[in-house]
């Protein structure tokens, strides 16, 4: 967790450098970030922990990108029960009533699809990156790569 925070502050410095150098590129970066999966930090900043909200029959944020070893907590904010079930049965919650939570720690990198077994139209995705390489959009090289990719478009 400590390492993750350090990475964030490094990200901030890198971001400042990019702003200083090329404002036009930055706006493209912002656009690209909006298209990318939500990062763990976005969910973290709101609640202090990495959480996925179950609200209005949907999982948010989804897809969610996290570094390996991260614990994710789902919170049911609906008036009806939901479940969190991995499609390949790697994790499975009991029915969560209103306000109830379920947590799972993702140790291995990979893409995890999950759904609500009560309302199977509700689906979500967790993308687990190797701890050091997680969230490339927040690193300087990642920002540049994204900007260049968009310019090519």
């Amino acid at each position, binding site marked *: 967790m400590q390492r993750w925070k350090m990475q964030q502050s490094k990200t901030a410095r890198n971001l400042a450098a990019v702003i200083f150098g090329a404002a036009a590129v930055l706006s493209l970066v912002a656009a690209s970030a909006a298209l990318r999966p939500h990062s763990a930090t976005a969910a973290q900043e709101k609640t202090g922990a990495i959480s996925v909200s179950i609200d209005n029959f949907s999982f948010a944020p989804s897809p969610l990108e996290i570094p390996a070893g991260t614990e994710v907590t789902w919170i049911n904010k*609906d*008036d009806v*029960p939901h479940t969190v079930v991995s499609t390949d049965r790697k994790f499975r919650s*009991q029915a969560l009533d*209103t306000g109830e939570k379920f947590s799972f720690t993702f140790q291995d990198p990979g893409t995890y699809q999950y*759904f609500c077994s009560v309302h*199977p*139209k509700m*689906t979500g995705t967790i993308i687990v990156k190797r701890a050091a390489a997680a969230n490339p959009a927040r690193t300087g090289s990642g920002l540049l790569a994204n900007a260049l990719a968009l310019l090519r478009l």
Partner: protein
Amino acid sequence: MSKYIEENLDRDGVDRRGFLKCMAWAGTGTFCLLQGGVLKSFALTDVLRKNAGDLKGDLSFVQISDSHIGFNKAANPDVAATLREAIAKVNALSTRPSFVLHTGDLTHLSKPEEFDTLAESLKSLKTERIFYVPGEHDVLNDNGQMFRERFGRGTQGDGWYSFDQKGAHFIGLVNVLDLKAGGLGKLGPDQLAWLEKDLVRLKSSTPIVVFAHIPLWAVYPQWGWGTDDSEQALSLLKRFGSVTILNGHIHQTMQKIEGNIAFHTACSTAFPQPQPGQADSPGPMKVPAEKLRSLLGVTEVNFVRGKHTLAIVDSTLQG
């Protein structure tokens, strides 16, 4: 004839305006008469005003649905009370129903105490027998084991079964188990194989009544209001002259006719849900307290032998 049948271009007893009124919520209630698979609809208030004697047949039964015992949120903080009102409504019918069908979501969270409350409440129903099928809320954590132990004794497979009454064949199906990511309700190959076997001995003139929790037609797949493999079941039913399919799940009345198959969904006894696509999600709908009982209700069905006729009456808890 009701004022709801004003023009009848297809000679099917239903005009477009009448059908649309029939599709509306049960705010005033709807009475539906089925003849050879053709639906005729009347406003319930019209039916109640005149002598309903001609609607009586060899068999009448009642459908109740979606009691959600254990639910206590703003949409209805006292679902036990509205269930009691539904029971009182059934007990007040001039003809005692031969049996009652509960089309699922007996409970909200599949808890033993919720099943207890439901079973205790329904003991006061004046009828010979109650038949059940599970809703997804009844099978939350154990694949329906507790439900089957309490309400599904003697059933086949994961809880499906059939029985005969006064010449009509009744089939209870389970479409809430082992649902797949991104999908809808599911019957599954085992149940479909059983259904095929169950129907094979029947004459095509036998009236069929199928009941299951999630609609067996695509009401609104975006909200999961449909069953992925229902077409396979419906194809097995196509040869029969009169098929009525009764479902719950969507907490509002809706009807549709497809060939000789008439589909009907019942109100909840607990809380209303929005019309398809009229809200962000299909969650419980909060309505003003004085309006709640006009959106909850029970369904009465009369079967007339020989005419292959089912008359379906939806009545709300209000009035």
